[in-house]
């Protein structure tokens, strides 16, 4: 009796640890400790659930230990091996595994109900179906998101004509099956369970298929909240309050993050899910036919321009992450600061592949916090800026978002870098950005191109500035 009481208290502490941990992650000073507290909470929760008194427990500790240890080792190695640039993909991948676990739980519970081992009521069955369905969407959706971000899958190739019709049909179908299973109180064949599982998995894949381009982070955040919700639903199945609490916390977190990301792009969530990006990209590209000559700038010229300016703003993008040029960027910053040039960084909310992606990279390179300006702080600064260096960013500095109503990114708030006196665009080539849209900035009268790999170019630029 006292064991149950003690472990219940442990679970209470775990729940508080999740809340306090998440709370502390909201400030850079306490963030790491917050993550540790949340992790300790998870450890406590696992111990309490492992040893808590349970009706009809056979325990099977060998199987459990094997699963937990194997998962821990794989997860730990994956986490320490992954490169910082691949972080968004990995969050998506890990999230998919959590979803996969929920799918397995939902499937086995449905199987047990159909085989007569358990006899859940209508409410329980609805929850089991919900776990299976949302777990499937989180699982296959996250896997596809991972594949898309990693460049394994091309967006355009997996979108079918009338894709939204198909998705709506699949959604209605899966909901109808869930209601049917609940209505007949689990009196279904094993084949029916399998069919439901397959359709749910296909729906998850199909749900993410038409979404691409700059919308990818929004989807990952959304799928993250789905996993949270399925964890909560699984908590209802097994009568575990801690699972319910943790799952709902994540569900709420993912939802809030998703909404914030949509706001940053000036689009509604529905618009993102429907996948407006792919369908309108063609008309946008056709409209952007106004191209003048592009101007290149040589390295020494760029160095001199930077050296004799008063204020420089660096606009980082995904290209910086790919080239791992953040440390060289910081070096250039230091060189210029020594010569009395004020250097700031303008961070667009969706620069890179995730909100905060650039902040993480620049923090890795020890760029001080106050040097980072967000979108609202940056735009008033540009007209007084001498030189803007765009490092591997494209869509977030595209003036078409303000001037061309036909463009797929029209209406998205952008960094108005063209208001500065000079713009140096560092780029590997004339390729389009992630959204697949032409960028008139490159043809702008104040823009000069500096072609090459961001890291190499940065290093050369630092040398040139040092030599002056």
């Amino acid at each position, binding site marked *: 009796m006292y064991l149950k009481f003690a472990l219940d208290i442990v679970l209470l502490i775990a729940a508080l640890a999740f809340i306090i941990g998440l709370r502390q992650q909201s400030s850079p000073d306490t963030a790491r400790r917050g993550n540790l507290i949340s992790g300790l909470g998870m450890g406590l929760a696992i111990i309490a659930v492992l040893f808590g008194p349970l009706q009809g*427990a056979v325990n099977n500790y060998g199987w459990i230990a094997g699963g937990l240890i194997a*998962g821990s080792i794989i997860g730990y190695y*994956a*986490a320490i091996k992954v490169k910082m640039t691949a*972080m968004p993909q990995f969050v998506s991948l890990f999230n998919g595994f959590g979803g996969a676990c929920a799918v397995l739980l939902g499937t086995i519970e449905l199987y047990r109900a159909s085989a007569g081992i358990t006899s859940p009521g209508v409410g329980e069955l609805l929850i089991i179906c919900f776990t299976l369905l949302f777990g499937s969407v989180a699982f296959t959706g996250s896997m596809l998101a991972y594949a898309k971000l990693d460049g394994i899958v091309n967006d355009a190739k997996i979108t079918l004509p009338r894709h939204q019709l198909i998705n709506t049909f699949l959604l209605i179908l899966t909901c109808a099956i869930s209601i049917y299973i609940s209505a007949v109180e689990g009196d279904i064949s094993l084949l029916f369970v399998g069919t439901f599982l397959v359709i749910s998995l296909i729906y998850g894949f199909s749900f993410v298929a038409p979404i691409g381009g700059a919308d990818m982070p929004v989807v990952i955040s959304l799928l993250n909240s789905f*996993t949270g919700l399925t964890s909560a639903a699984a908590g209802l199945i097994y009568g575990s309050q801690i699972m319910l609490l943790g*799952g709902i916390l994540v569900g709420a977190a993912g939802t809030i993050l998703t909404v914030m990301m949509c706001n940053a792009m000036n689009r509604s969530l529905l618009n993102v899910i429907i996948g407006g990006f792919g369908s309108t990209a063609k008309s946008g590209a056709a409209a952007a036919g106004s191209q003048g000559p592009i101007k290149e700038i040589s390295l020494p010229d760029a160095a001199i321009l930077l050296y004799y300016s008063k204020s420089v703003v660096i606009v980082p993008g995904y290209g910086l992450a790919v080239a791992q040029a953040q440390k060289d960027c910081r070096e250039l910053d230091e060189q210029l600061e020594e010569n009395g040039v004020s250097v700031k960084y303008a961070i667009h909310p969706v620069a890179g592949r995730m909100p905060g992606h650039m902040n993480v990279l620049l923090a890795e390179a020890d*760029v001080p916090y106050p040097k980072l300006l967000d979108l609202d702080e940056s735009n008033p600064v540009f007209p007084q800026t001498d030189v803007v260096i765009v490092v591997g960013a494209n869509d977030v500095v595209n003036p078409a978002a303000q001037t061309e109503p036909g463009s797929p990114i029209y209406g998205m708030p952008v960094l108005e870098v063209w208001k500065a006196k000079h713009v140096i665009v560092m780029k590997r080539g004339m390729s389009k950005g992630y959204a697949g849209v032409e960028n008139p900035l490159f043809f702008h009268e104040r823009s000069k191109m500096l072609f090459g790999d961001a890291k190499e170019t940065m290093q050369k630029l630092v040398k040139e500035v040092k030599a002056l």
Partner: protein
Amino acid sequence: MEVFVQFYETNQLLIWLLFFTVILGFEVISKVPTVLHTPLMSGANAISGIVVLGAILLLRQSEPDDYLTLIVGTLGAVLAMINVVGGYAVTDRMFEMFKKKKQR
């Protein structure tokens, strides 16, 4: 209708907890600055691995000779544990960079 009333009555506290937690989650998250969004998403994702508890509960209640349930449950535990440990480790790596910066 009767079944729903019955369901609500037996699970009343859980349902209350659910609504309170939604509000709590919104409150805790809405005060996070943009810089911390990526690590936070990762940190929240690690917590969603709590579904591992479901796999543990399933395994503990399974008959020792019900190999289908045992295998499915163990596989679930492996997958969810990857989410938990990988999630926390990756999040820690991201936050570590913020900390280094603070020492300067």
